[in-house]
């Protein structure tokens, strides 16, 4: 029959419909995660076999519509139009069918046949909505599969429906939405004018409709193709009917109303839902903040009580152990080789490895909060505060994650749709004091400030956050013109988390960090080792020391010797390196020794300025690597580094000068 056949299936759906759970069920672990060409939008692909057919699945970005509001919509529709998948599976959420079918109304006019997978049937039922799949199927004329993906229900039926549709195209008799009468004539006029210029493989009707909707991407594309005189006529029509976008959207909703009239049954039990009850607390302007503070406190506590000890164990046994092993193996080899392997390679790889526990904890929390539906609420309650920086509430969670580690913060910024908000969040993330910086802070402050140490430490954390807020306001004004994009965010219904979905998310995010940041960290670590070891093998006379001496004039302004500057540079690998390198440079046997030496060589003013710089300095290489891979731009990465360099040195100088005057 269909032996050795290969088909392409695209998975489409709005956000919060459980699409990734459906994708995970279909493909299991045979997934490939990458990016869409030239975009920072994640692209997931997977394969499964059924009846000898190899089915390739592409998970399209979650979008509410197919009009170009952001790059996600453009990616989704371009894939369907250009790659012509054999089947498009539209996953919809049974508890909000009307709005979810809007995407289906947009998918049906495209060339690929559509299967509607009605997911979350159980959630809908709990909220007093019953969907009758057979009735919906009869109304739409396309296969409809009811599912509860979290309970593994309906997946076999979906696989079968895909197979049936590919085997027999005659099953597909869709009743497509049509434009309302009041705009039919206009649409025809536009089509007549532009149809000779519509490039393959775009459907002419679809292009005309998108023009009438005022879709920016299609307007740009067609303006370049249609001769000027014709375009002027098209444009005159479009200007005359600028309000068509509302009429077309209303028309789609009217169509949805007709399609679902019989298929949606509301028993109409007037009971208060779980979501309503939880939201009374979670979105309250006061209690909501307390709930948020509680949850975040828990994340902190878990990181310190679980993540940090594991990190320590890995440091001692895995990194220390392999360093020991390497030293033994390389005992007879030249000293530089031992140094390269132990300090360069193992040091670098070790840094990467010790990141893992904290990353996993944060990815797990992010995945969990996102999956149960809480994340949107956190964004909602923080929106007022984030507005001051020209950001939305949505930026809050990624920035908060920065307290654990800046890497997940930068990666988490993905949840912000607008490129502007995404970039600004990434630029600000390194200003959040991460655990490694807190460690340096915790080591230094008792040495210099005695009883006032906690006060100084909290003051420095507060300073970092104040700098973050001010930078946000300034970057927003200067680089983005202070304009704020609209805040419209769905608050999904709360539901029980799906551990498999969260597990796969943790796995993929960690892997992606290892792959992308890992290699760069290794390279930089080796380079830094070389700088510290060459040409004499002694750090005192190395290139790195030379660089430190070169920076001495700047250091002098902050009261810092070249040795302290070198410690700053080495903290580029990992912030906690600062302490270890100071020990090496000052020739202290171990950290206890350093604790006695430091107060002798540094005045409290210089120590304070060092901590200020350390807190605000260029982030560690892992963060920089992530900033680069997430912004996909050298320009923004360099801007970020420069910004932090200027801020940290500037404030360091200021603090030292003022502190010297006072003391």
């Amino acid at each position, binding site marked *: 029959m269909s032996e050795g056949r290969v088909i392409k299936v695209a998975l489409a759906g709005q956000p919060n419909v459980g699409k990734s759970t459906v994708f995970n069920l279909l493909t299991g672990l045979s997934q490939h995660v990458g990016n869409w060409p030239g975009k920072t939008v994640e692209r997931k692909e997977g394969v499964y076999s059924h009846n000898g057919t190899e089915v390739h699945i592409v998970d399209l970005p979650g979008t509410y519509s197919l009009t170009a509001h952001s790059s996600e919509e453009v990616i989704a529709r371009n894939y369907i139009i250009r790659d012509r998948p054999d089947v498009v599976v539209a996953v919809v959420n049974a508890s909000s069918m009307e709005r979810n079918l809007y995407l289906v109304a947009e998918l049906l006019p495209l060339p690929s046949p559509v299967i509607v997978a009605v997911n979350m049937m159980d959630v809908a039922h709990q909220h007093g909505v019953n969907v009758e799949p057979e009735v919906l199927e009869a109304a739409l004329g396309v296969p409809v599969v009811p599912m509860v993906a979290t309970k593994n229900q309906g997946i076999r039926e979906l696989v079968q429906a895909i197979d049936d549709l590919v085997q027999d195209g005659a099953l597909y008799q869709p009743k497509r939405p049509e434009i309302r009468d009041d705009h039919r004539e206009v649409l025809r006029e536009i089509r007549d004018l532009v149809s000779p210029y519509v490039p393959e493989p775009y459907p002419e009707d679809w292009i005309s409709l998108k023009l009438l909707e005022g879709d920016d991407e299609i307007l740009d594309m067609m303006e370049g193709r249609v001769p000027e005189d014709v375009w002027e006529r098209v444009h005159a029509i479009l200007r005359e009917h600028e309000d068509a976008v509302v009429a077309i959207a209303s028309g789609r909703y009217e169509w949805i109303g007709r399609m679902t009239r019989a298929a949606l049954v509301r028993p109409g039990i007037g009971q208060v839902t779980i979501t309503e009850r939880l939201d009374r607390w979670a979105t309250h*302007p006061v209690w909501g903040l307390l709930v948020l503070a509680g949850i975040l406190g828990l994340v902190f506590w878990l990181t310190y009580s679980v993540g940090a000890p594991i990190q320590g164990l890995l440091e001692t046994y895995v990194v220390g152990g392999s360093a020991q092993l390497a030293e033994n193996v390389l005992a007879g080899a030249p000293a530089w080789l031992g140094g390269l392997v132990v300090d360069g390679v193992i040091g670098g790889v070790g840094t990467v490895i010790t990141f893992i526990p904290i990353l996993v904890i944060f990815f797990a929390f992010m995945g969990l909060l996102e999956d149960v539906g809480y994340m949107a609420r956190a964004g909602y309650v923080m929106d007022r505060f984030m507005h001051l920086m020209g950001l939305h509430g949505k930026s809050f969670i990624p920035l908060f994650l920065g307290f654990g580690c800046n890497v997940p913060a930068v990666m988490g910024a993905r949840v912000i749709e607008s490129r502007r908000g995404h970039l600004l969040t990434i630029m600000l993330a390194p200003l959040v004091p991460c655990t490694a910086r807190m460690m340096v802070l915790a080591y230094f402050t008792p040495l210099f400030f005695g009883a006032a140490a906690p006060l100084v430490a909290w003051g420095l954390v507060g300073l970092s956050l104040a700098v973050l807020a001010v930078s946000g306001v300034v970057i927003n004004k200067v680089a983005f013109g202070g304009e704020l994009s609209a*805040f*419209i965010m769905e608050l999904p219904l709360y539901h029980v988390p799906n551990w498999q979905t969260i597990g796969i998310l943790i796995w993929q995010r960690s892997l992606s960090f290892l792959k992308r940041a890992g290699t760069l960290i290794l390279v930089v670590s080796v380079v830094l080792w070389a700088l510290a070891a060459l040409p004499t093998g002694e750090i005192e006379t190395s290139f790195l020391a030379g660089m430190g001496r070169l920076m001495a004039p700047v250091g002098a302004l902050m009261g810092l010797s070249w040795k302290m500057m070198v410690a700053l540079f080495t903290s580029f690998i990992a912030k906690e390196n600062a302490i270890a390198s100071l020990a090496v440079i000052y020739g202290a046997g171990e950290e206890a020794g350093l604790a006695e030496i430091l107060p002798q060589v540094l005045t409290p003013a210089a120590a304070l300025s060092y901590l200020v710089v350390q807190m605000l300095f260029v982030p560690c290489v892992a963060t920089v690597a992530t900033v680069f891979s997430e912004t996909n731009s050298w320009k923004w990465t360099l801007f970020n580094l420069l910004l932090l360099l200027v801020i940290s040195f500037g404030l360091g100088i200021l603090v030292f000068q003022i502190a010297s005057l006072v003391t």
Partner: protein
Amino acid sequence: MGKTGVVIAASGGAHGGPTGRGRGRRLHWRRSKHVVAPEHERLAKLVREGGGYDLVEVGYDHGREPSIESAVEAVIKAGASRVVVVPAGIANSSLAEVISSEEGRHGEVDIVYAQEPADGATYADWIVSKVREHDPGYATAEAAFGLRRLGALKTGETAVIHDFDAGHTLVSRLSALGFTPGASVTMIQNYGHGPVIVSVRDTRMALGRGEAAKIRVRQVACGE
């Protein structure tokens, strides 16, 4: 009470006329000297429809025809007993003089000159609001229709979306999400500050206060 006429005073110079949002940028109109430019015609149409004023004319300065004077004349001839002159785009400094001399010519008619638009307001809406300021007959027609802003609904209130007072991009996003004229919206949470939560088409949506103020709603009528 007599009718209120509207004159949209546009620049007859080289850079006349509003540029509009989005699409407007892309097109350069070659206009002939004696015709009302299409963008002004459209503006007049929007004012007629959006404000319910049937006497709306466009006049140009810089000697371009139809002139502001002839437009004032036209609305008075058509029966206006009060004329509100509103500059479309950057008003030229002599506009006030033109209007005071017109006032002298048509002694029986009240001719009012409205100030220039505030930043960000769409021209048509701004013109309508300006005319209303000077139109006692208008009273509070918006209130009479029961039109309110979505952000003004109290927690628990339900209303029907009437229209939008927003740019194309926001309208496009909102309507795709189910905020279409005729759709029923319930205010779930509104503390009078910060973003609001509304329920539309079985979905809870958080909306910024600014966005909520750009959606006009009316009371649910019987049978709706």
